[in-house]
């Protein structure tokens, strides 16, 4: 009991003022609709949040929704919450709706998101200086293909997520041509075939992602990101360019419909308190994607094992 109270207090402190005021249940007979996007990690986040809301007495429905399309739905109040929005690939639609005040950012999900350059472990034998980024300079020819010769080949994010890979190759003055991947499936296919063939591969990737649990992949060590790196050309190894450093840590946050708090005040507070660790998330992902488990079952197991955590969210919301 004491431990629970402490957790609750800590949580309410860390979550700011919203949890301080005692929240009402609100329209608990109306269904709260949470979005289910296209990736397993998000399914886990949504189900944890949804199940906890159910325990608190709400009616919850999970609705499949395209990552981009869900923001128009939330702006209209047709869907009510998205439990995993990544700053790295959030579409402009999110920004537009956010600026218009139709949806609301209610804080981070709790896991450490990371973006950066990765390579499968076998690539280390081809380019022995790795994981230091400087090693890439001399290895470019090893990564070259028909499309990129004489430069090396870097697989970048799909063009609609931005071009962080290309920006950094320019910033760090590395002789690599960034090829946009086109889709997440394409990135994973590259990874799979590189590991199968033991062929060179160097690409932009992110965590938490199930592939990091399933395959042996390493991050390239890069100069730590600071604000100056993105604004000040003179900062860093390349005096003539910005972006000569690692990725700024991505934010992963929760978004709800702007009318959410008024309609379900307590549920709103619970979702604000919602927070899951990177390791927990990645373990569940592996259990589902590799072990063939079901999202519902894995989430139920997590809820059993972490009762204190989620009871703390509810307690703090009351």
């Amino acid at each position, binding site marked *: 009991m004491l431990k629970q109270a402490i957790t609750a207090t800590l949580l309410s402190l860390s979550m700011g003022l919203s949890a301080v005021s005692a929240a009402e249940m609100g329209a608990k007979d109306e269904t709260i609709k949470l979005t289910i996007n296209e990736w397993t990690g998000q399914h886990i986040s949504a189900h944890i949040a949804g199940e906890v809301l159910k325990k608190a007495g709400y009616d919850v429905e999970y609705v499949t929704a*395209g990552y*981009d399309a869900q923001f*128009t*739905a939330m702006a209209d109040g047709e869907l009510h919450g998205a439990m995993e929005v990544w700053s790295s690939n959030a579409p402009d639609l999110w920004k537009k709706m956010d600026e218009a005040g139709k949806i609301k950012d209610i804080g981070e999900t709790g896991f450490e998101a990371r973006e950066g350059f990765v390579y499968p472990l076998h690539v280390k034998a081809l380019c022995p200086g790795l994981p230091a980024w400087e090693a890439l300079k001399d290895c470019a020819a090893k990564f070259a293909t028909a499309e990129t010769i004489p430069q090396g080949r870097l697989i970048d994010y799909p063009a*609609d997520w931005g071009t962080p890979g290309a920006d950094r190759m320019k910033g760090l003055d590395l002789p690599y041509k960034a090829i946009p*991947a086109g889709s997440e*499936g394409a990135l994973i296919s590259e990874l799979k*075939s590189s590991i199968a063939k033991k062929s060179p591969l160097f690409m932009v990737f992110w965590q938490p992602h199930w592939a990091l649990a399933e395959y042996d992949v390493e991050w390239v060590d890069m100069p730590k990101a600071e604000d100056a790196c993105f604004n000040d050309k003179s900062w860093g190894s390349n005096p003539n360019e910005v972006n000569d450093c690692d990725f700024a840590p991505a934010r992963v946050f929760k978004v709800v419909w702007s009318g959410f708090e008024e309609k379900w005040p307590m549920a709103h507070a619970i979702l604000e308190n919602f927070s899951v660790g990177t390791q927990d998330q990645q373990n569940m992902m592996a259990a589902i994607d590799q072990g063939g488990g079901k999202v519902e079952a894995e989430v139920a197991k997590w809820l059993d094992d972490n009762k204190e955590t989620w009871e703390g969210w509810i307690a703090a919301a009351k």
Partner: protein
Amino acid sequence: MAKPPTPPTARGTRRSLPPQALPWLGLLALALALPFFMSVLPWLKAWPVDWLLPLADWINAAMDALAPALKPTTRILSATLEWPMLALRDVLQWLPWPVLVLAVLLLAFHASGPKLAVICLLALLYIALSGYWRQAMNTLALVGIAVPLSLLLGLLIGIAAQRTKIGARLVPPALDVMQTMPTFAYLIPLLVLFGFGPVVGLIASAIYACPPMVRNVHLGLSRIPGEIKEAATFAGSSAWQKLFWVELPAAMTQIKVGINQTIMAALSMVIIASVIGGFDDIGWEVLSTMRKARFGESLLAGFVIVLLAVVIDRISAAYASKDSTQRTPLLAGRIGYCGGGLLLLCAAFKLSGFDPSITDPAWAKAVATWLDTRLEGIVVAYGNALTAIKNTLFYYYLLPLRIGFSQAILPFTWGFDFTQLMRWSYAIACGVLALGLSWRSGWRKGLLLAALAYLLYFGLTGMPWLVFGTAIILLAWQAGNLATAVFTGLALTFILVTGMWERAMLSIYLCGAAVILSFLLGSALGVWAATRERASAVIRPIADTFQTIPLFVFLIPVLMFFQIGEFTALLAIIAYAFVPAVRYTENGLRQVSPELLEVATEQGATPWQIFWQIKVPLALPTIMVGLNQTVMYAFAMLVIAALVGTTGLGQQVYLSLSAADTGAGLIAGLSMALLAMVTDRIMQTWARKRFAGMASTAH
């Protein structure tokens, strides 16, 4: 003494150029001169940014202004459409699965006979056993509402097009745009207007699926013999009575073809609709597995769509070809069916201990894993060979087409430098050859050679826009007519001033490269299928599968074999676009009358001669339709090909989608539609001129 006029010799006529050749000569001179001025006048190479028309901004401003006014109406409409769809979904989900299987079985039996019934039974059993029953039913609910909606719209528009002057003018180009504009290009405005959810998918399906219905209604009504209409008028029927009691029934055979095509088009949109989500359908499953690059699972899920398409297509096609005047099943027979059905139903209920909507079958998992390991095995075993194939085609085929010999020939691609001397030798050799060819076999062939040499030297993306644009307009004018040329000119101007030229050229390059290979592959298979029954029996179901399976499924193995890039995109496009070439080639060759072939054989023609001198020329009009369709299919695949990392108009569509930029999306989509329409118009007007007299001799 007056000199007798020398009769024009054969050589003499060839030497004097006809007036049509003159503009081409002018263009040739321009094309050769331009590269020398490009460094001085950079706008000759790329249209300057300052001259662009801010059309996208205008569209966005208009959209922002109009959307609030339209929203109340569109939202009522989407609520009206959503209700029956959700109801149908609930009914299908509630229905015990054996009941549906039985109903389909009886329907298939009634439509065609025991053979079709068995095919449908097997197909549905697969869906039930694969663990995708629930998703398949949701998809069925979507299609179940999209199809009647498209049919109704199609019928109304078709009648309007046939009855009114405005309709006859406006409808055909509108249909072209509806069929060639990629759905992703207008997804954002649809989402804004109709709200999130399956209704948007429904509307997108209806937009794409109603044109075949319109075309067939129009065709059917136009073909009714005048006597029938007169008879109806004499009988004193009003215009409406005439339409409903005389004309529509008379056009029914054609309309049924339209119904079948509309159903298939609606099914092919299922996967696109699932990008929006909100319905937990089978397309969503395919997309999710594609994201994880799980080939096995995505193939199993993709097959559900193929089988749904097979069942619906075969049943509706059987009804369409059935003679409506003939009443086969008598009342007694129907009672017999129903009684037997009920009995079977009870037995099936007993058997249905398992619920296909919740089972997660072990066999499917095993098959999927097996497929994935196989795939990886192939990647490991043949990885180097596959890379060698890719590099060869890339260096010697794709690169010259895209950037031309002038940039493609480098020591690490072709093994040597393209020196100044070689460049001049290439130019002179091609010039001499072109002149020689026009001397010997007519100016057209010489011109073609010169154009090809020019194209391969500069590449499609390196060519000055003025040269490419003028050449296409000239082609449209001479192969088609003045109207085609004007349309082509306007379309290309639109692409140029909206800033889409560069991306359009990349798309044209990729499509062109794919069309050439698809057509070669497809027509070769078609010839084979036309000569061997067994080959035909094998090729047909494969072609059907390629056409209905969501091609996302094939992106994964192709990606694993050939990695991200244009080559993979090329293969993905070919996988879809070779099908019409196979079908039309086979049909065209099979339609050649056997009597004609007998006569030829009697006269001692060898099989080779018969093939090239009789069969191919007679089948050519049909084969050309196949080529036309191949081009259309290739354009349709551009958006999907962008998922493996192409940089043309397809990528622009995705960029605009994620930026929620309605204007840019519409412009990119419309550019694609215009390119497809221009190609289609030129080919059709040319074929109409060329084959005008042939239709009668072919039969």
